[in-house]
């Protein structure tokens, strides 16, 4: 690792205590009810808590909790592009930056944005871009940054939802909201909106994240890994869409609430 002179540095090597636990981490059962009491094989998403407009400095922001997954998204812009090329003249530029805070996972993460963060940023970008009316913002850029404060699973899916809320909060024109939902599939059964433990313990199966535009019925982001059959994948996509629809009213409510708070009291006439 290159020496980092811009930070306070600790010892060269240090290891997470998790590696030395006396008892091996309990393997989650692949059947029966889930640890948090939710149902398997159903679009059973965790209850979410969302708030818009918490950050004073941003043009739009949203904070979201799903179980103990906590993340925050800020939107800056539209503001003038720093880098100009021909496409910017007709169309705005969207940039996304997603990071996991060093303390957000069971094992500490590094300061430097790793490939995982870059990958997540790209996925976030591809999921959001179809929804934003970029042609309405020529020569400008809209910056979306997401910080995951606690990773308790399904971060990408929730980041998508949170970011679309923050975009809406910033008053950026969008065709539709974007909602995210993910699932983990293992040995013939699946869990929707998995927790971190569920994500890491699904051995032979795989994970799937879908970003969905609910009113337009369009999939704007799709990403899977691990091994699954085509039928499972297709079924998984359907389940995720179902999960998104469950989330939809909650998100709408949060936005309306934010609007109410922001709007001046109705004039009496």
């Amino acid at each position, binding site marked *: 690792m290159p020496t980092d002179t811009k930070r306070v540095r600790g010892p060269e090597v240090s290891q997470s205590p998790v590696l030395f636990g006396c008892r091996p981490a309990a393997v989650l059962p692949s059947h029966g009810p889930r640890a948090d009491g939710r149902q398997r094989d159903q679009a059973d998403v965790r209850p979410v808590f969302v708030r818009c407009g918490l950050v004073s400095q941003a043009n739009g922001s949203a904070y979201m909790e799903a179980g103990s997954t906590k993340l925050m998204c800020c939107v800056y812009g539209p503001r003038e592009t720093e880098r100009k090329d021909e496409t910017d003249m007709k169309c705005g530029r969207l940039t996304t930056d997603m990071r996991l805070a060093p303390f957000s996972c069971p094992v500490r993460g590094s300061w430097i944005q790793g490939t995982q963060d870059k*990958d997540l940023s790209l996925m976030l970008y591809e999921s959001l871009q179809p929804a934003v009316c970029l042609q309405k913002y020529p020569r400008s850029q809209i910056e979306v940054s997401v910080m995951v404060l606690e990773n308790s699973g399904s971060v990408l899916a929730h980041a998508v939802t949170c970011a679309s809320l923050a975009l809406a909060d910033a008053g950026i024109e969008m065709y539709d909201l974007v909602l995210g939902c993910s699932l983990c599939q293992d040995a013939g059964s699946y869990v929707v909106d998995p927790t971190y433990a569920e994500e890491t313990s699904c051995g032979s199966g795989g994970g799937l994240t879908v970003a969905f535009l609910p009113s337009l019925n369009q999939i704007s982001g*799709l990403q899977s890994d691990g*091994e*699954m*059959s085509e039928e499972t994948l297709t079924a998984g996509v359907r389940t995720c869409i179902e999960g998104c629809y469950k989330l939809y009213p909650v998100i709408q409510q949060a936005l309306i609430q934010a609007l109410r708070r922001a709007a001046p009291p109705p004039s009496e006439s």
Partner: protein
Amino acid sequence: MATVQVSEAEKVYILHGIRDDLRVDGRGCEDYRHMEIETDVVSNTDGSAKVTLGHTAVLVGIKAEIGKPRPMVPNEGYLEFFVDCSANATPEFEGRGGEELGTELSNTLYRVFNNKHSLDLRSLCISPGEHCWVLYVDVLLLQCDGNLYDAMSVAIKAALFNTKIPRVNISSDDEGGKEIELSDDPFDCMRLDVENVPCIVTLCKVGHRHVVDATLQEKACSVASLLISVTHKGAVTCARKVGGGSLDPESVFEMTEAGKRVGKALHAPLMALLRQEESLGMKRHKVGFLG
């Protein structure tokens, strides 16, 4: 990614052609361009392959190095991917221009291989918790003419097939320390089982239909693509939507189905070709870049 400009009228022409299942180069929607594959092209690697698909050309070199197993999986070796989008492929990649695409491609490769069956990682273990083989899979883009993903995955499979890892002898000395000795006999080597290594199929949605192996012009007409990596048994190891647009669920399902079908069919001819090449042995006329 390397981009080309296409006028509105050209787009319409391409779009209608795909609707009628007759693409500009005469192919049907699910036809690949002519593909040439050759392995063992770079002699200082442990395995290598060169694949050309239309004008797209990729070179894959694999180096096996001894490293320390990951703490979470002490009895497995691992793969490292790196994709070099060099300026040779297109001037757009000059300086740091290709870095973004490079990370995107290598991240996808990590996903594609992120499962238990693609490659038997346990066979790469030398001594649990201490030593294992790390396979550095380095992809070099030589020319871009669309459909990098598919070409890359075929080249990787071919290079893995070609990879020869020296046999290792572990002897312990008097003080209990272990010594690792590599066999110098070039024939005393370990081969990898590539049966389950997946191939990537990129389906480009153009108009209301989708095509495989899109050229740059076709890609310019498409709003979104679905990338899907499929094993010879038809299992999907990675799926991703790429590109700026969105897809309706029905077409995602159609594309997944087509991707699986096409992907599954890629493996048999590829394996047959690799075996045929191998059977030629020393008689094989190496072509490389001189042919």
